[in-house]
């Protein structure tokens, strides 16, 4: 979906070096990224981004059935922006590659300023073609079994409105349609089986071949009477798999002198389960479609995060206008309403097992140079 901005002016040239780490739920993921953005003749801007995720470990629903996974995801993207009068055009291409997953995405959007540049209307289209595989070997000697393709199309529209000299608000809507292989090959269902000493047996997931979802998001940002900003976002999501979700986020941004910017945020998310999800099916083949992906289970999570930005070289140095260094830490608590870790299953009854929950810490540090 588009990020609606206030006016048809290209942002400053910048270069970013980024490091991230995610730790939680049995997974360690580190990420490194480089981004360069450059304007040409005040009308064109080109942005290139390279991102590498290194994953080790696996989430509980995979760990219980497979060896520990080590993998890298490399993502390359290139985007071109062009401004003509009050219209901004953006075209981008992204390639993301893992050993067992290849994704190619093309995105086009345009935004138009109107009503004295108080209103910006945006439209966008995104198409992704994905190739999905399963690693039947090991992390060191992979044997990839390519299982199928999926095709995703996203249509979005947004409006951003200056309400007062202190308040800006935005509304965005998007529809995404998917078709093809949409399952996760590393996960499986379990069903009640009194003949098995464990009380249950495992089976393959069966997903629908299509999915259509829509999301509407409203956001507002308010400049407080002193120099600080308060932001609020609400999103409602629904899809043809029966998932309904609500997301609420609040941010508070407080500069300290002209050097430091402190930002605190709180995010709350809740979702209902997909119609074909079950933690434990009553018998094999109980439904046409069956999933035990915990992402499709009923769940809630909340995030408390903080961000500290330090501005250096405020008066510029050689070709640079200024630089910033940022530290961002988030703590996320995930709680599931109908998903349990099968390692916790006692005897033949899943009811005895506690609902799964875990905490994750997300750490980001990055350096940005503006020129």
């Amino acid at each position, binding site marked *: 979906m588009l990020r609606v901005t206030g006016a048809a002016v290209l942002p400053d040239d910048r270069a970013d070096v980024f490091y991230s780490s995610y730790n939680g739920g049995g997974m360690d993921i580190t990420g490194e990224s480089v981004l360069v953005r450059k304007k040409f003749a005040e009308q064109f801007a080109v942005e290139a981004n390279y991102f590498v995720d290194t994953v080790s470990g696996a989430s509980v629903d995979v760990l219980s059935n497979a060896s520990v996974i080590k993998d890298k995801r490399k993502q390359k993207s290139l985007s071109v922006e062009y401004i003509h009068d009050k219209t901004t055009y953006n075209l981008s291409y992204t390639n993301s590659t893992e050993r067992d997953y290849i994704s190619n995405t093309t995105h086009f959007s345009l935004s138009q300023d109107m009503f004295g540049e108080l209103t910006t209307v945006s439209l966008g289209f995104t198409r992704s073609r994905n190739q999905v595989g399963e690693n039947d070997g090991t992390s060191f000697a992979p044997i990839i079994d390519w299982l199928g393709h999926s095709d995703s199309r996203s249509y979005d529209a947004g409006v951003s409105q200056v309400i007062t000299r202190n308040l800006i608000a935005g509304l965005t809507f998007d529809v995404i349609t998917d078709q093809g292989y949409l399952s996760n090959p590393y996960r499986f269902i379990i069903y009640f089986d009194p003949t098995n000493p464990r009380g249950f047996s495992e089976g393959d997931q069966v997903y629908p071949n299509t999915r259509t979802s829509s999301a509407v998001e409203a956001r507002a940002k308010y400049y407080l009477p002193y120099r600080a900003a308060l932001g609020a976002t609400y999103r409602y999501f629904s899809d043809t798999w029966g998932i309904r979700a609500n997301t609420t986020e609040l941010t508070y941004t407080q500069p300290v002198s002209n050097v430091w910017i402190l930002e605190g945020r709180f995010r709350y998310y809740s979702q209902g389960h997909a119609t074909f999800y079950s933690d434990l099916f009553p018998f094999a083949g109980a439904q046409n479609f069956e999933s035990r992906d915990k992402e499709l289970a009923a769940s809630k999570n909340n995030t408390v995060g903080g961000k500290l930005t330090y501005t250096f070289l405020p008066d510029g140095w050689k070709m640079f206008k200024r630089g910033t260094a940022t530290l961002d830490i988030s703590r*996320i608590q995930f709680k599931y309403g109908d998903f349990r870790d099968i390692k916790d299953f006692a005897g033949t009854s899943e009811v005895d097992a506690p609902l799964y929950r875990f905490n994750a810490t997300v750490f980001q540090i990055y350096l940005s140079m503006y020129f």
Partner: protein
Amino acid sequence: MSIRRRSMLIAVSLALGACGNLQPWVKPYERDRLADPIMSWDRDAVSAAYLDHVYESREGSRGGTGTAGGGCGCN
């Protein structure tokens, strides 16, 4: 023309007329606060896209963010 259609025509004409006379109620010189970096939706695109990806990989919902495709990297 029925009274109802005539009323609608008048209402639409008034609405369009109002748009035609619409003046920016926040003048360009009054937008200094809105232009402050603390008022931008996302000051740092890489960080925002990364956090969107963290959530999209672990939640059943998607959309409403700037994440443009890509794999999960999260098995």
